[in-house]
């Protein structure tokens, strides 16, 4: 009999206490009641090492980098190492035919039970020829692997919303996972890259409850994407006071004032960066002095300059406005000429003269 997750962790030197602490933290992050931590520990502890297949399509490997290197070694890493990651092109030792065979074997042995994680968008242009693995297009691979998956987690903005590959003019015809997979539970974990604990949190939630957590309108888990960065930002009081950094090196910036004027997209970006942070809770972009890019929102590449304030227009075609004003003057002049003509006609009419 294969060892359970808890047994596997113990063999890695993780105590029962640390394991329970992790479950409690995870339950808290997922906004679950305290009793859920016990249920989560019980479910995770008994779980056989679940099979996970990770497919990488049009992406930069940043999502994998985030997960494996952000705060290693960590308990999340070990949890992730303790699942049966049967296929991951970046991390697996096998290559070529052996790698593909590993995926086929995992799919056959765990059909209908494995969890599919996808990073990267799927190119549809030219029959999917822009991105292939082992001679098979990403589209065909996704359809085939997703058919036997219990759930699909789209990791990163590219797989969630199309991301950078889908940016205008979208030369490869890139689409998101949820555009293709419509008959399976799909959850989006966007971010460029996403926060590691959010990825592991989704897997843990599925193992515990057998379902993915409640999502918002963009299929993002509400527990992690329920609030805007702005709502949880430590610079928010400066926004409320009207204190803004004007440049990246002025006194306001040095005093840690709000970065709204420098293009921060925190007010319209839903993510947990401001609370969970990165590198073991060390910092996040705004804390490092740069505004939020809005990377966990759909189409964030095509929303104008990263440094354009949110209240500023994204279209300011001055010549077009000048033409509109000129047209107004022309119409007004014609109206005035017509009026003058009427004035002349009225003043020359006999009726008017008799008066």
């Amino acid at each position, binding site marked *: 009999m294969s060892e359970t997750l808890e047994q596997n962790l113990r063999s890695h030197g993780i105590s029962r206490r640390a394991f329970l602490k992790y479950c409690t933290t995870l339950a808290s992050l997922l906004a679950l009641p305290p009793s859920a931590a016990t249920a989560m520990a019980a479910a995770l502890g008994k779980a056989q090492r679940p099979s996970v297949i990770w497919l990488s399509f049009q992406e930069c490997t940043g999502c994998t980098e985030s997960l494996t290197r952000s705060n290693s070694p960590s308990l999340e890493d070990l949890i992730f190492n303790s699942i049966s990651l049967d296929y991951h092109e970046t991390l697996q030792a096998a290559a070529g035919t052996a790698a593909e065979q590993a995926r086929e074997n995992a799919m056959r042995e765990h059909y209908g039970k494995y969890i599919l994680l996808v990073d990267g968008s799927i190119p549809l242009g030219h029959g999917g020829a822009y991105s292939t693995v082992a001679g098979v297009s990403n589209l065909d691979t996704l359809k085939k692997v997703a058919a036997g998956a219990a759930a699909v987690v789209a990791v990163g903005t590219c797989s969630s919303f199309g991301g950078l590959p889908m940016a205008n003019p979208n030369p490869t015809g890139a689409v998101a996972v949820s555009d293709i997979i419509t008959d399976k539970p799909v959850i989006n974990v966007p971010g460029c890259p996403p926060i590691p604990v959010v990825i592991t949190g989704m897997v843990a939630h599925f193992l515990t409850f057998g379902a993915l957590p409640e999502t918002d309108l963009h299929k993002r888990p509400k527990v992690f994407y329920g609030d805007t960065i702005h709502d949880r930002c430590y610079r928010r009081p400066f926004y409320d006071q009207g204190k803004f950094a004007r440049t990246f090196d002025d006194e306001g910036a040095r005093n840690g004032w709000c970065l709204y004027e420098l293009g921060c997209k925190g007010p319209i970006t839903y993510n947990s960066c401001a609370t969970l942070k990165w590198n073991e809770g060390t910092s996040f972009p705004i804390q490092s002095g740069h505004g939020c890019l809005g990377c966990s929102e759909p189409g964030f590449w095509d929303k104008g300059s990263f440094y354009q304030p949110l209240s*500023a227009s994204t279209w300011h075609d001055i010549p077009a406005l000048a033409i509109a004003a000129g047209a107004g003057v022309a119409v007004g002049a014609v109206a005035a000429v017509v*009026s003058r003509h009427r004035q002349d006609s009225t003043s020359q009419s006999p009726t008017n003269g008799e008066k």
Partner: protein
Amino acid sequence: MNLLDFARGPGLQGALAIFLFGMTWRLAGILLLRRKTDFSVARTGDWWFGAFRLIVQRSLPRREFASATGYPLALSYLFHIGLVIILFGLNQHILLLRTYTGISWSNLPSGLVNLAAAVTAAAMVALLIRRLSHPVLRLISNFDDYFSWLVAFLPVATGMLAVAHLGGRYENLLAIHILSAELLLVWFPFGKLMHASLIFLSRGTSGALLTRKGAAI
């Protein structure tokens, strides 16, 4: 393209184009009209001063009508001053104006702008109640009066909600606020809101003519 993208992009561009078209149409149409030739000898040459004087004078309360006009006049002053503070004092608005003019200035503290917005909204509501409850005012009011009030009030109300993050997701609140401002821009040249520019033109013209004739103003 979501609602906010539309509001910040083509929506704003279109509204501004209509606003500029309408404003220049109305102003050119009036300014290019033929003026009646005045054959009389001018009593005084400082008609510019007369024009300016009448603009100021007609903006001040008249003592003999103070009891009748004091209340609406005070409310009107309150919400006009409030609108100026909101439009030119809030940093988000300054950043928008900078996009088109390249000019920027220091913003006012948000607390002061929020207070101005609250006073403005309250004064506008009070004026609407007065218009609805006053028999004469109600009789002479038409669609233009009520719609102009609405398009002026909506940006204030939605702006307050957006700043306070009340009533929905911020991106939707911001989009609705910008769209309401765009509605104001579109309506501005064609309704009674046009008084904001014509009032100076008409009062100035009257002041200049009266001064030329030597009338006391």
